[in-house]
């Protein structure tokens, strides 16, 4: 009962938030990033957290969705929903190729191969012409349904919807045969096989599901930002951000990725937007023209990746079960 009340409050807050903050595009932008990262990390979590198969190349599926959707839209101006669906197909094909190569192997191979596949995808997109190469793709004046192009709010609800769907799937999986099987595979593959679990099949199932959801998010992101290039949607850094979000919140838990995104996205935003430097300068603590001031303004904006590195190291050493791991009661 308590749980349902909690979820109802959460849903109400999430739905009402855009109405409360109005149309402040900056805040809405950060909220969209949070929802997207929470959903991406939750989708990764199905494969990485529950099945224990750490993918270090999820950017490939995100990019597959974003690129497929934008290419189809700019070239043929098809129905966006159809484009998203084709994106899912493309991502699924990449996932199936990866899965069929490496899921017969054990140990470090899946992690390594997932990066290799992602790099093949990234470099191919960079080298082909129809993908816009290094220039990327700009979705200039294509109308999406009847949406107001200047409003971000529809994308807030779009991302929220995908997040809710992803969390619902995860919640359902946890209590289903597939969820138990994935966790068994994570804990001990031999034991899992001896209990009748087709390891290969279930790993691929988790990968496909995870890749499909990730690709939808990539499509939405492309439609929302209206400009993509390989460094935005296919970079290894994105793959690592997705994992890190799950790790910080708690891998293999329902809410871990959401908590991770609530913390990490604003943190990165503070650094990226140079908030710290601005505050220090405005408060008169640092002179804008001094060496420190210039450094803060010029370089600190790039420091969020450094911060990710530091957080990753600290998290693995001192908080390997994430924030939710702290609150888990010991059984």
């Amino acid at each position: 009962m308590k749980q349902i009340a909690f979820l109802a409050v959460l849903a109400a807050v999430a739905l009402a938030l855009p109405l409360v903050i109005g149309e402040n595009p900056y805040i809405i932008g950060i909220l969209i990033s949070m929802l997207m990262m929470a959903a991406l990390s939750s989708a990764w979590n199905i494969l990485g957290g529950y099945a224990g198969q750490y993918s270090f190349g999820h950017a490939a599926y995100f990019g597959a969705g974003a690129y497929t959707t934008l290419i189809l839209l700019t070239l043929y101006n098809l129905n966006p929903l159809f484009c998203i669906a084709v994106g899912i197909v493309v991502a699924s094909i990449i996932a199936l190729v990866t899965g069929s190569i490496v899921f017969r192997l054990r140990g470090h191979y899946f992690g390594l191969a997932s990066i290799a596949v992602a790099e093949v995808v990234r470099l191919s997109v960079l080298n082909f012409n129809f993908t816009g190469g290094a220039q990327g793709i700009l979705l200039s004046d294509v109308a999406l349904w009847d949406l107001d192009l200047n409003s971000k709010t529809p994308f807030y609800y779009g991302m929220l919807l995908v997040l809710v769907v992803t969390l619902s799937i995860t919640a359902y999986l946890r209590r289903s045969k597939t969820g138990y099987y994935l966790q068994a595979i994570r804990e001990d593959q031999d034991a899992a096989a001896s209990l009748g679990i087709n390891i290969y099949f279930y790993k691929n199932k988790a990968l496909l599901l995870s890749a499909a959801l990730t690709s939808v998010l990539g499509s939405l992101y492309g439609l929302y930002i209206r400009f993509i290039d390989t460094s935005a949607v296919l970079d290894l850094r994105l793959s690592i951000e997705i994992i890190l979000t799950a790790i910080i919140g708690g891998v293999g838990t329902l809410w871990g990725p959401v908590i991770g995104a609530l913390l990490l996205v604003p943190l990165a935003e503070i650094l990226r937007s140079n908030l710290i430097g601005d505050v220090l300068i405005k408060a008169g603590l640092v002179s804008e023209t001094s060496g420190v001031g210039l450094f803060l303004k010029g370089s600190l904006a790039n420091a969020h990746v450094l911060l990710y590195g530091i957080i990753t190291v600290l998290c693995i050493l001192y908080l390997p079960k994430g924030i939710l791991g702290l609150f888990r009661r010991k059984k």
Partner: protein
Amino acid sequence: MIQHLLHISHVSKHFGGNVAVSDVSFSVEEEQIFGLIGPNGAGKTTLFNCITGFFPATSGDVIFDTKKINALRPDEICKLGMARTWQRVKPLGSLTVLENVMVGAFSVTTVAKEAEANAKEQLQVVGLNDYATKSAGSLPIGLKKKLELARVLATRPKMLLLDEICGGLNHTETDTILDIIRGIRKKGATIIFIEHDMKAVTSICDRIVVLNSGEKLAEGTPGEITTNPDVIAAYLGGGHHA
């Protein structure tokens, strides 16, 4: 006519140049408790791995329930009704005891409620019901062995392969497990039993095969085996505790 549930025919397993199992044949009848014994390194566990699909046999056939299963994967073999336990127990550490058994139960149902009911029933059988919500990784070894047993029972096997299920247990624990096994057989399951504890084997088995250095040394009833001079020389005289 005698029903052979499992028929092992000239099975060999080589690892590179090493012969771990060499030309072993025997048959197991329905509802038998069949012992597989031998000194350390005799190839017992390797033979289990060949039968259950973990390492396919290099040559020879494994026929289960009139079906040739040499080339099948472990999960397919489990689905046919043959389940195994592990000498080195393999609990799914971060799941609860009940969830561990449910994983086994899902091989016969897709409905979580049914799996849970089945799992609870098996926990009752092995006497672990008080531990249902404990995490499996935290159990002491004796209870982990019982958990292994409950988990394979939940797959509703026709045949159970138990790899040193009493290993590392004290007498009382061993007796409890043996009682459980007798109970399982009464319900119609067939059991192959790898064991070091000679007393346990002779007290429970209908028939015994002795392996030594990968080869079959002897086969017979417990009475025949304990008086067989070859067995005494190789097994009992070999410095291995009985």
